[in-house]
């Protein structure tokens, strides 16, 4: 599909593109000359005569993880309409103030250090997760109240499992 798109990074950075006929692409209204090359099963972007190893790490509908020179970037790709809708929903979400804490890696819960309803500060240790024989302290990413603890000591968790839910 041709038209206008916004790539929204995880940190909230916006990249505005317009894709036109014959493969012409505009970035912030200016022509972007990027080509793609495949070599020995690897994909490269060629930009200003330089080669960047690139791969699509994951994609799920409009959510993308792109890996470039071994570093991953996450984007959601929006059309101007979906972007406006997203902004509206985000605002609503923020008002409720709920935020899940995800397991950063697969492992085993060794100890829970807080109780539900406890008030925590940013950086407070919440629980201890053991992975690759190391014990890791998982800390609160923000200040708030522990709304719900979804795991117990001894539980095995997968990456991105919701461990604790923090709220206002």
């Amino acid at each position, binding site marked *: *599909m*041709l*038209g206008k*798109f916004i*790539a929204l*990074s995880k940190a909230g*950075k916006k*990249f505005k*593109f317009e*894709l036109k006929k014959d*493969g012409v*692409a505009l*970035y912030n209204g200016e022509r*972007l000359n*990027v*080509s*793609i090359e*495949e070599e*020995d*099963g*690897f*994909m490269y*972007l060629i*930009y200003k005569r330089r080669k*960047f*190893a*690139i*791969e*699509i790490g994951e*994609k799920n509908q*409009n959510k*993308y993880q*792109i*890996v*470039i*020179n*071994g*570093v*991953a*970037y996450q*984007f959601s*790709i929006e059309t101007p309409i979906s972007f406006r809708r997203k902004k509206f929903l985000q605002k609503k979400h923020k008002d409720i103030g709920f935020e899940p804490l995800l397991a*950063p*890696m*697969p492992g085993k819960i*060794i100890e829970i250090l807080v109780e539900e309803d406890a008030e925590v500060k940013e950086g407070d240790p919440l629980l*201890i997760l*053991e*992975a*690759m*024989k*190391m*014990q*890791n302290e998982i800390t609160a990413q923000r200040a708030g109240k522990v709304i719900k603890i979804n795991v117990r000591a001894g539980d095995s968790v997968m*990456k991105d499992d919701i461990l604790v839910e923090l709220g206002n």
Partner: protein
Amino acid sequence: MKSLLVANRGEIAVRIIRTARKMGIKTYAIRTAKEPSALYLEHADEVVDFIPNTEGIPEFLDIEGIISLAKANKIEAVHPGYGFLAESPYFAQRCDEEKIIYVGPSADAIYKMGNKTIAKQLAKKYNVPLVEGSAKNLKSVDEALSIAEKIAYPVILKAAAGGGGRGMRIVNKPEEMEKMFNMASNEAQKAFNDASIFIEKYVRKPRHIEFQVIGDKHGNIVHLGERECSIQRKHQKLIEEAPSAALNESLRKKMGEAAIEIARSVKYYSAGTVEFLLDADNNFYFMEMNTRIQVEHPVTEMVTGLDLIEQMIRVARGEKLSFAQKDIHINGWAIECRVNAEDVQSNFSPNMGIIEKMHLPAGKNIRIDTGIREGSEITPFFDSMIAKIICYGVTRDEAIQNTLDALNNTQIKGLRTTIPFFKALLHNKKFRKGDINTSFIDTEMKSLFYTEPVEELLAAFMATQDFANELKMDEDSVVDYNKGQTLSPWLLNKRLKSL
């Protein structure tokens, strides 16, 4: 020695087999159910199957299982590689009892150096400087608090049976002691089945300098210079170099002699490593001795021209060292990067998965030690190492540049690796000046991975283009035979990929 059982897997199995075969020794590798088609098996002359034990002991820790494999196949010698098996004095002892040649030090040396409390007592006896601390294992939090008071904070708690960073905690103030004490002893119990921990002064901004030693069964011990392993994360080494930018000839001589003194205290033979902390005023302190070949041994091989596995085998056969201390010369500089399947962007968390595609660099200044290939899977069963990339240069600057070139020429598709970390480190000005210490990663690195400003834009564009193509594919679900004539390279590439 005509035959050798390699009681390990991965890159170190490949490494040992390579030298043993070169020496005309028939090599045996152990196949496990967890990775029946692993690369190391293809390098060996013979493959024997591990017979699962009823207790569920992991393959390469099953001492009796390995002994019976050696006996059943009439294999003369065993090399344990590195890891827990190589750290077990009992395994060395059992080999002796069964008249199997153990390619490593004596059981006595492994036992004494493996127990840090005994090792420290020996160092003290031979006047090798030590970091102050508790001479014995701690009995209680109160005892820890009172010793910490005496030697002053910060202090570090360590597992008595430890290694590899497990069971270690730094305590900055008394209020943290109880929590850290419990964490360290829990971790020690889990990792080593022994909860005992001890305490010592925590030396700030220390460098980790270790000396490679090699001894024979006739009482000769020589050191092969140092390796600098100061770049660590959670006490795990990430990159190593030889020699160290911090040492001059006289300090090298002093530390080397101390290393030999430690080795001599246990009548050491085979290859071993004596680890020291070196502070900013060039005071050094003995930490521990590793009684085995180490992951980072290639950098020493590169600058000395020796093959350490060959030396270990020769010593195990009873040969005398063919060189003396005066024959050892350090030439040039070598750097090793441990490329692990870890996501640097999320705290180096293990990144399991399949190596879809891999391109490793090659060249005259490059050595690659790896136990995997395309299609290999990084599983939670074993460590997350993909490959060691070892580069040589005449000077340190040249070695750094050669390493960067090699990393830029490495492509691994399918999972995240520590390569972006190494690029960030090798670009760091302080690192390039050699101004490093063991907390370098926490204090001196703004970003743990290397990126270029334009990369995010290119990634955003890639995602946008792919998304647009997906939408277009949905619209085009009705087959149009004229479509192919105006196929964009993006779409073409997508189709190629999905073949």
